[in-house]
């Protein structure tokens, strides 16, 4: 496959044609913040955290869905981008009830990590304090809608990796929420195979193993990558 040369943050980079800017940056050791992106499933460009500046393009582009092009000049870390990322995170924290102190994912949460790595020391917008429930009807797993950021990783792994289609998004706008089948209690789902991929995929404490308490919910993202690599590349033993 043809190679493309481009620069990311001034660093000359060669990437395969068809690769995304995010992949190219990752290979070059440049970290672009992401939230809805998950290795192994298709990208949706929804969280807007990976927006980057590309010289000659007026609009900001999501690194996860933008393909590399010859001679492209990408900036991933300008003052403006940092400000927008911080606001995005503030909006997320204000939107639902993310109380880190009493969260199962405290210390292992991508949202929490993003917040401090982007320098978010407080949220300037009024917290909305919506009333969302917790579904603990499933034998093995629980879903706390208060912690959900609607990244749809669970929806995508359930459909594209497991093929069950148990999870989806219902409603719209700020009333959007993750459902199980016809919005029934998870424990009553006919389609759920109890595979737990959604729990592995979740970036926050929204999906958890039952029985975990504050700070105990650690995930093994490698399992998902393993399945996808095995399926797509027919490779069951890999170096990393």
């Amino acid at each position, binding site marked *: 496959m043809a190679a493309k040369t481009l620069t990311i943050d001034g660093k000359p980079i060669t990437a395969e044609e068809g690769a995304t800017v995010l992949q190219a940056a990752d290979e070059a050791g440049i970290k672009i913040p992401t939230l809805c992106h998950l290795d192994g499933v298709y990208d949706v460009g*929804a969280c*807007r955290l990976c927006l980057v500046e590309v010289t000659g393009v007026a609009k900001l582009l999501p690194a996860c869905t933008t393909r590399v092009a010859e001679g492209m000049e990408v900036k991933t870390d300008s003052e403006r981008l940092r400000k*927008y990322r911080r606001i995005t995170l503030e*909006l997320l924290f204000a939107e639902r009830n993310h109380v880190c102190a009493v969260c199962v994912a405290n210390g292992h949460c991508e949202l929490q990590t993003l917040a401090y790595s982007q320098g978010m020391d407080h949220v300037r*917008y009024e917290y909305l304090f919506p009333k969302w429930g917790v579904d603990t009807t499933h034998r093995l797993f629980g879903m706390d809608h208060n912690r959900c950021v*609607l990244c749809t990783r669970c929806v995508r792994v359930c459909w594209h990796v497991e093929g069950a289609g148990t999870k989806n998004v219902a409603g*719209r*706008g*700020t009333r*959007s929420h993750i459902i199980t089948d016809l919005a029934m209690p998870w424990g009553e789902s006919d389609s759920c195979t109890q595979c737990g991929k959604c729990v592995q995929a979740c970036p926050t404490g929204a999906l958890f193993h039952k029985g975990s308490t504050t700070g105990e919910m650690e995930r093994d993202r490698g399992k998902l990558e393993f399945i996808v690599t095995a399926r797509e590349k027919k490779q069951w033993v890999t170096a990393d």
Partner: protein
Amino acid sequence: MQLDDLNAIAEKEKAAAKKICLRTCMSAGCMSSRADVIKKNLDAEVKAQGMEAEVEVRRVGCMGFCGQGPLVGVDHDDGREELFEFVKPEDAPAIVSSLKGGPCDVHRGDPKHPFFAKQVKIVRANGGIVDPESIEDYIAVGGYQALHQALTELKPAEVVEAITKSGLRGRGGAGYPTGLKWGTVAKSAGNKKYVVCNGDEGDPGAFMDRSVLESDPHLVLEGMAIAAYAVGADQGFLYVRAEYPLAISRLQIAIKQAKQLGLLGGGIFETPFIFNVDIRIGAGAFVCGEETALMASVEGKRGTPRPRPPFPAESGLWGCPTLINNVETFANIAPIIANGAEWYASFGTEKSKGTKVFALTGKITNNGLIEVPMGIPLRQIVEEMGGGAPDGRQIKSVQTGGPSGGCIPAQHLDTPVDYESLTKLGSIMGSGGMVVMDDTTNMVEIAKFYMEFCMDESCGKCIPCRAGTVQMHNLLDKILKRKATARDLAKLEELCDMVKNTSLCGLGQTAPNPTLSTLRFFRNEYEQLLQPDKFGPRGNGEPKKASVAA
């Protein structure tokens, strides 16, 4: 079907014309005031007064002057024109007897009123003239001639060139050059291509597309067919809002008629060209006006947008190259092909060619639909045609572009109405809604109204739009409740900038526009509502970050 057949239908229709035609507007506006009963009563009355031989009562589409409806127009064979306004079903006997010189005190309108006289009708030429449920009527005024011309005289590339030369730009809002879009789809590789007509007219205060679909559905079908020929598509989808049942039923009738006459389907005009059109009914989601969301909806999914590129022209419906244009854009196509690109380009300004249909509503004396050449000063529209604000009030601002647009203040009324000038003022051409506000209007409330709209219509996929519109709405609400300080206003402005630049689709990217434009021209109205910042940084004016040295 061949050209001779088409001409034969037209001749037959013309020969059957009667001396007097009573045109009864049966578009949604007038229908809400029982235009259907008016038509029935007129029919009965013509019969009762024995005038069937010389009088035709015709169902027609929108005449445009909706605020004065229900409307009945009269065409005499000597070219005289009359207009009855505010017609009631019981007025039928008087109207019919007036044709023989009888007394009639039904409210008369002036067909030469500037509201009509200043219009240049290309898209709406047949509106209020032809029966939208009769394909023969459409053929009689030259319908489907352009399609015949395109299929038999022009190569697809020549059609694209004609559209490019005409200078037509997308009438859905953004104003992308139509010819350029067609060219991209035509060049895209693929055996299967689609043409989609975006009739998801969701801007509150806009009803141009509804009117075109209800009044002249064949004009849109013909435009789509020509487009399909030009880009190499064989399947079209007409996406119409569920809120427009009359438009849907007239389109269904039109498609059926066109198929029967062989103007849709296989082997049109005995050429190898095949084109079928299916209607897709929306279900109440403004975001589906955005092209990638619309495609998701056509595919039967949640109408959420996706990042572009890839653009629909390269990868659209089911991954195939797809041409998406708005109703009014398609309605311009047949006239351009029939009359030539130069003819079309002679209307309008250098960069904005042709005409534009506007829905003139709000605090304005003459409500309704108008079609004017691009570049006409806004003042002519609102003052001369619209008659200014009613009840002796002053016009304060004109809102264009709906929730994606802005408010143009009275001091800029001399602005020519074209894409560039409106953008310069922080508004957009939009799909054609023009809501007039008078001096009693609170502009902060208007900003909140639009923000609430965007908040409710946000699909929820991307964070800036989903969560940002809520926060902007809450800040506007706080300002209106006189609880906000200058710091809140600064936060609002920062959020407007962020949501505009980071949202995934046009809905979010333009959601801050009404707020930004009212802030630009009516900032004092915001500032008057702000409260002193009693618990702000200590000692106002001092450096905020006082360092504390030991």
